[in-house]
């Protein structure tokens, strides 16, 4: 009788533990309710060498130790790029002090022929003095866009001084291990990005 009772109790404890464990695992793995998606497996960058807007070399290792938000755009872009950088600037101001200290914002140029480090420097700082710009040869740039799932196409005549570049409107989140962690889809608002970023970072 006693042994039977112990057996039943043990079963119940095991069941409860199993239920708790599975709900815990589910909670950890469940994709958060964000406008975009979290990668099931964070994606590493192929080793690249870009130049930041201060003229210094920038590699995948420079993404480590903090969260990074990447937007792929270009300085000649009149509408969506300034709009997104303005959203970044609002977002930065909405983050907590810790969040702000742990998050960096980048404009990655999809127009390296015109976006020199100097030009990017003036451009990104117009929106926020701490924003950074990255530029580099197409083969290096393509390593970033490939991992980030971003696309760009120059459809027109590049001889025209203000040709345009078609590009992804997504915002890519890189985690402190330097891997692509999530992609947020447009339309972006500072409020939405702040909510999504907080959710994703909380599950890290």
């Amino acid at each position, binding site marked *: 009788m006693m042994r039977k009772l112990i057996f039943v109790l043990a079963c119940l404890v095991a069941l409860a533990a199993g239920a708790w464990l599975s709900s815990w695992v589910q909670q950890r793995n469940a994709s958060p309710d964000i406008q975009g998606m979290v990668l099931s497996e964070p994606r590493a960058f192929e080793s690249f060498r870009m130049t930041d807007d201060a003229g210094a070399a920038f590699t995948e290792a420079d993404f480590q130790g903090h969260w990074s938000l990447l937007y792929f755009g270009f300085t000649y872009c009149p*509408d969506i790029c*300034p709009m997104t950088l*303005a959203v970044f600037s609002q977002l930065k101001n909405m983050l907590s002090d810790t969040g702000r200290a742990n998050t960096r914002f980048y404009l990655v140029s999809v127009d390296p022929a015109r976006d020199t480090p100097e030009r990017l420097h*003036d*451009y990104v700082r117009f929106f926020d003095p701490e924003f950074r710009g990255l530029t580099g040869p197409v083969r290096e740039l393509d390593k970033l866009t490939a991992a980030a799932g971003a696309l760009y196409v120059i459809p027109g005549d590049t001889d025209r001084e*203000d040709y345009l570049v078609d590009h992804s409107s*997504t915002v890519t989140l890189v985690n402190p291990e330097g891997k692509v962690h999530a992609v947020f889809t447009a339309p972006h608002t500072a409020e939405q990005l702040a909510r999504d970023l907080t959710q994703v970072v909380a599950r890290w």
Partner: protein
Amino acid sequence: MSAIQLDKTVDKPEISAREVMRIVAVAALATILMIAPAWADQSFISDAWIRATPPGVSTAAGYMKVHNEGPALKLVTVSCDAAGEVQLHQHIMEDGLMRMEQLPEITVDANTVLEFKPGSLHLMLRRLKQPLAAGDSVACTVRFDDGSVIEQQFSVRAPGSSGNAR
């Protein structure tokens, strides 16, 4: 006081045919005068603004609301003092790419408001003659296919004033 005096003068009911004609003529004129501005003002523009430009940038985006209170008409050209050229642009999402497409003209349906806004329909100002700073004002001319023209001042606003990125 005057109302009482008026009442007294109305005591005489006889009005000559000539007087009737005069009243009709005045009434007709008044009606025309009241309607005329509405004819000329079938469409108007509100919320006209241009985003301030970052250093070294020679393009800018402009936005506005075109109110059409008459029959459908087409917006054909926009020109601004500050820019070498102004194009009508629409953002199109295609295969995950945000693509800008230039439109030759834009139809404004009867009795509707056509909104130019960030991430959507916008004016692209090319070959800016000078940087545009928040607080500046830019004079632009908007032309329609029916020959009507609207002279509109666009105010230059800080880059963050767009609010939502749509």
